[in-house]
């Protein structure tokens, strides 16, 4: 795969583009930081500069993932799943009686999910968590014997496993799809997903700051506006369409795919904001400074990855 990455000019172009954008925005960010005038513009610039740090890290992670190959990328995503689940379970109230269930979630269910992907055992990979873990979680909590808030606890743990392990695992699963005529280029699919998803996030933010007026759900997330949503989805879809040459899609298909990624990604970040409101924090990273923030970065990816994966599998894999 390391050779593939070097011998795959389209992949090189995608990466080059991302790097170029990052360098450009970092330079612009520095210049703006020196020139900033009002408090409002200062906070936006600081916010963007902070996000950029995370993007550099993500970019580095994906570069490593592509270079070390399929299995390496799988391990990398398993680690991200682990860290995300760790953040989630830390902040979600669980009780003493959930201890063993949680142990199984971290050390059996989640690693098993990634093993199944590595084995290309699609049949079990797709149902293990929704069917088997779904039954396992409430049963093991019931066996522990504590019935207080039973449904809430079981539901919260199940949601965490679905989002952090099941949903996210569909991103590296893209590397194990066999799209006819596209063999050896699977890394591009993963990169395409991440680029469209992350660009939707930042473009939505920028559009929202520029012309945003009408809030979508101010109680959930005061920063999300209809103008930002439409602008972000439209411009990220346009970008995704323009990247059709790196994918097995036609330009029209690429538009449909990136539009879907945008919609589901938006849903993901909205839902995660609502959960954070529920728990009473602004960012998953704030409470546990220095460790947190992973769930904040991958919230949209968690919702977009499964649908992107299933669409490709349904339409492009015979």
């Amino acid at each position, binding site marked *: 795969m390391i050779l593939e990455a070097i011998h795959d000019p389209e992949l090189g172009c995608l990466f080059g583009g991302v790097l170029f954008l990052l360098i450009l925005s970092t330079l612009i960010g520095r210049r703006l930081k020196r020139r900033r005038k009002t408090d409002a513009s200062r906070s936006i610039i600081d916010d963007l500069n902070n996000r950029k740090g995370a993007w550099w890290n993500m970019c580095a992670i994906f570069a490593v993932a592509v270079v070390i190959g399929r299995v390496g990328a799988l391990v990398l995503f398993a680690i991200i799943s682990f860290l995300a689940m760790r953040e989630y379970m830390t902040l979600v109230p*669980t009780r003493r009686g959930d201890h063993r269930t949680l142990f199984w979630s971290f050390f059996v269910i989640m690693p098993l999910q990634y093993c199944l992907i590595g084995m290309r055992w699609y049949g079990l990979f797709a149902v293990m968590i929704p069917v088997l873990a779904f039954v396992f979680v409430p049963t093991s909590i019931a066996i522990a014997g504590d019935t207080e808030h039973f449904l809430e606890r079981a539901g919260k743990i199940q949601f965490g496993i679905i989002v952090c392990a099941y949903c996210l695992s569909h991103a590296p699963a893209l590397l194990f799809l066999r799209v006819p005529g596209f063999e050896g280029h699977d890394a591009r699919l993963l990169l395409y997903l991440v680029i469209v998803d992350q660009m939707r996030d930042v473009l939505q933010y920028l559009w929202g700051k520029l012309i945003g007026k009408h809030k979508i759900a101010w109680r959930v997330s005061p920063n999300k506006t209809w103008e930002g949503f439409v602008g972000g989805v439209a411009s990220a879809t346009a970008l995704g369409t323009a990247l059709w040459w790196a994918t097995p899609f036609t330009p029209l298909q690429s538009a449909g795919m990136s539009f879907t990624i945008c919609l589901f990604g938006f849903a993901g970040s909205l839902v995660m904001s609502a959960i954070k409101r529920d728990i009473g924090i602004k960012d998953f990273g704030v409470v546990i400074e220095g460790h947190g923030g992973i769930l904040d970065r991958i919230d949209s990816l968690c919702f977009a990855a499964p649908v992107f994966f299933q669409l490709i599998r349904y339409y492009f894999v015979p």
Partner: protein
Amino acid sequence: MSNSIHPMASVLAAVARGISGVQVQWAGCEPDERQRIYFANHSSHLDFVVLWSALPSEIRAKTRPIAAKDYWEETSPRRYVAKNVFHAVLLERGLVTKAQNPEEAQFAGRQLVEHMADALGTESSLILFPEGTRGSGEKIGPFRSGLYYLAQRRPDVELVPAYLENLNRILPKGEILPVPMLSLLTFGKPIQVEPEEHRDAFLERAREAVASLRRIGPA
């Protein structure tokens, strides 16, 4: 006691830090090589190792835990970990409560304090869990009086409160397998026994000093 760190202690400390993802904050004081008694809430076997691992290595080499003799001498692996790996000061529990009369209780109590004061010596520090046993982690239990008498006996030693948060969810009492959630450790401002301060008033104040360091609140 030797001043070198047992290799297994370093390994256990690294493992405990990895599992607990602990974030350390020195809120009321800075790490210092002077003699101290760190006292904290107790809800998990990880408590001591996590607290100990949060100290810089020069300080770590001179810092010993106070532990219950009955529990830590029960099996030989436990005894090895307590004595050889962490150089624990093992105290017998229940001597004071089991005593037949007040004189005997007073004598037993004085002996325990003497034992801890000996362990402090001229350069050691101690880690003490004044609740005496692991709690559920929901609230801090009443403090045993040893801390008060030890503080009176050695007024030159600084008393540093610390709060260990979430470790009861990572490795609760009665479990042997940990769940790797994240945890917090906060060191507070040192306290001392005021002149003429009554035992119970001081112990309550010490408990407050630990409780006030809680950052997230009960889960």
